[in-house]
């Protein structure tokens, strides 16, 4: 079972999936509150560039990651103001954010292309890292990967076991009833939107600070959109989003390693693997959701007007 090839593919899956996971986990929280944010691509880019900029100024990747959290959150605030305060079309606002984030990051990023930064390196966790098979797959990474091992269960706990989580789910299902029960719908939605975008910003910073160790325009290459898709696939659940993100990461990791061992399959077919997998899994997910009713939050994407 401990074939080095499989271990390498799976370890690569965790690494490749982590950036998407941050973004998808954030989007789960946002969408649970009834706000859909399609702007993850732009938010990740802004996170990636703010992470690099601040890390190269301060020399600390930790401060860089925090800056990405703030940067992503600020873009989330824009989306929140548009879609909550002004009750704008959330799809349109999300697309605006994608374009805005791409432009902003390209503009501010020019000064940081090719900049040397201190990055997180892989740290093997004592004991856990020595477990055969599992150890090299999960416990021989950088600190941002380990962060998700804590973050994702925490988010699940937040969503299902806390009052705040209940409030988020309530405003996402039925804002009128939630409001009648004394929940301040806009406040909860503001929180969920800004927090979700902040996490997406961290996902972007993972790409620039840790994974590729540098900034280049448009470096997310569609991963923000993948993250939006993963939320549907995950049935709006943080733990399933983790599985989905690793599946996406795994498909990419497999594609590249199949090439490294020298298969004769067309590179185009291999390049399609991540997307093909997602389509297949979507189809299965949709069919299953029809049977079990654990689908989308009922008020998703609908503007809430408290004065109507």
């Amino acid at each position, binding site marked *: 079972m401990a074939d*080095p090839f499989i271990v*390498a593919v799976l370890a*690569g899956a965790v*690494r*490749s999936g982590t*950036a998407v996971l941050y973004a998808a986990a954030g989007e789960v929280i946002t969408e649970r509150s009834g706000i859909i944010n399609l702007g993850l691509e732009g938010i990740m880019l802004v996170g990636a560039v703010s992470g690099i900029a601040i890390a190269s100024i301060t020399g600390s990747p930790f401060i860089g990651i925090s800056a990405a959290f703030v940067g992503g959150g600020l873009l989330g605030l824009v989306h929140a103001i548009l879609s909550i305060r002004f009750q704008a079309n959330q799809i349109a606002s999300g697309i605006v954010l994608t374009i805005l984030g791409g432009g902003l990051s*390209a503009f501010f990023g*020019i000064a940081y*292309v*090719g900049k040397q930064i201190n*990055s997180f*390196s892989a740290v093997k966790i004592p004991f856990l890292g020595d477990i055969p098979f599992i150890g090299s797959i999960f416990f021989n990474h950088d600190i941002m990967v380990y962060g998700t091992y804590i973050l994702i269960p925490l988010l699940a706990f937040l969503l299902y076991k806390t009052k705040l989580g209940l409030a988020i789910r309530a405003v996402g299902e039925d804002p009128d009833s939630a409001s009648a029960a004394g929940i301040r719908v806009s406040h909860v939605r503001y929180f969920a939107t800004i927090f979700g975008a902040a996490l997406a910003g961290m996902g972007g910073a993972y*790409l620039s600070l840790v*994974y*590729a*160790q*540098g900034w*280049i*325009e*448009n*470096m997310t*290459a569609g*991963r923000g959109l993948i993250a939006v898709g993963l939320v549907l696939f995950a049935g709006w659940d943080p733990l399933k989003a983790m599985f989905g993100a690793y599946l996406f990461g795994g498909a*990419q*990791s497999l594609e*590249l*390693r199949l*090439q*490294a*061992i*020298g*298969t*004769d*399959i*067309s*590179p*185009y077919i*291999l*390049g399609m693997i991540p997307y093909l997998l997602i389509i297949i899994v979507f189809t299965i997910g949709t069919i299953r959701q029809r049977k079990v009713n654990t689908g989308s939050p009922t008020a998703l994407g609908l503007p809430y007007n408290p004065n109507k």
Partner: protein
Amino acid sequence: MKKQLCILLFCLLLIPCQASIAVEEKSKPMKVGFLCVGPINDNGWNYAHNKGRLYLEKNMPGQVTTIMAESVPESAEAERVLEKMIAQGAKLIFTTSYGYLDPDMRVAARHPDVTFMQVNRPYAEKNIGTYFSWQYQPMYMAGVAAGRMTKTNKLGYIAAHPVPPLMQAINAFTLGARSVNPKVTTKVIWINSWSDPPKEAEAIKGLVESGVDVIGHCQDNQNTVAKTAESLGVYCTGFYNDAHELAPKKWLTGACLDWGPLYVQITKSVMNHTWKSESIVKGMEGGYIKLSSFGPAVPDKVRKEIKSIEDNVKNGKMVVFQGPLKDRDGKLRLAAGDKADFKWLSEMVWFVPGVEGALAAK
């Protein structure tokens, strides 16, 4: 009669108008447009074209102004940007990516008075000329360095798309390495994108896991490849631009473009109307493509060896693709005594022996 008089008057009106335009054209600097597929600060392909543009501005002050459009996709978007440049008055446009030829042809047909220079394609007609330089020549030398430096005899190559110019580079790299170390093999990983840094980083990790200790590449953006190789402790070679500072310990050498003098030459020929449609392709003897500086890891003996190959290639004593040359399946691709010409090179969609990796076409 009245009508004829009107036409005559109208024509008279036009004469000073045209004269003033002509005068204006002479005194006004010529606008030269540049279309780039990625950001110009990528330390690679687009950086090299922008370096050429800056050289042009510096060497023809007052005579030219330039317009730069970065990150233009190879789609209908390129057509739109080209039209906009022409509306802004561009008389000469350099389209600096492989996939711009189709938008180029459509726009060029609509604007016969504008000159287009398309990079990288063996195609020339009316107002479209092409230019390119043989990047495979310095990549052969980078291959020699790789072949000398590898301990595992496994080289890796991160490649964007299976197009002939990149096939030439991969094949030349492998031929160079095997000329000094016949046990060497090159594993090719296709990224299917000119730039996707996260995927490049993961691909290099995959290669290193499989035993590779020298990474060659032809991605537009060199930052990720060089830095990832440096941090994983494997050697890397460059492409398009000398980026040795990105991998201070692990840089070997590579290909480095220098378009500046060519851009000046073409711009001058368009200005004094001597420009004609042709394919300008030169190797290292033309000076548009050079060998990058050596990294500290390369010993003097290897440097000397490569320098002498460089001299021989420059003065024509040595040719990289020389017959008899077989592909990895044993099919004869270049007969003994035959010389590689532009057409032969631009149809290269096969690998030489020693290259491992999928082929797009069989």
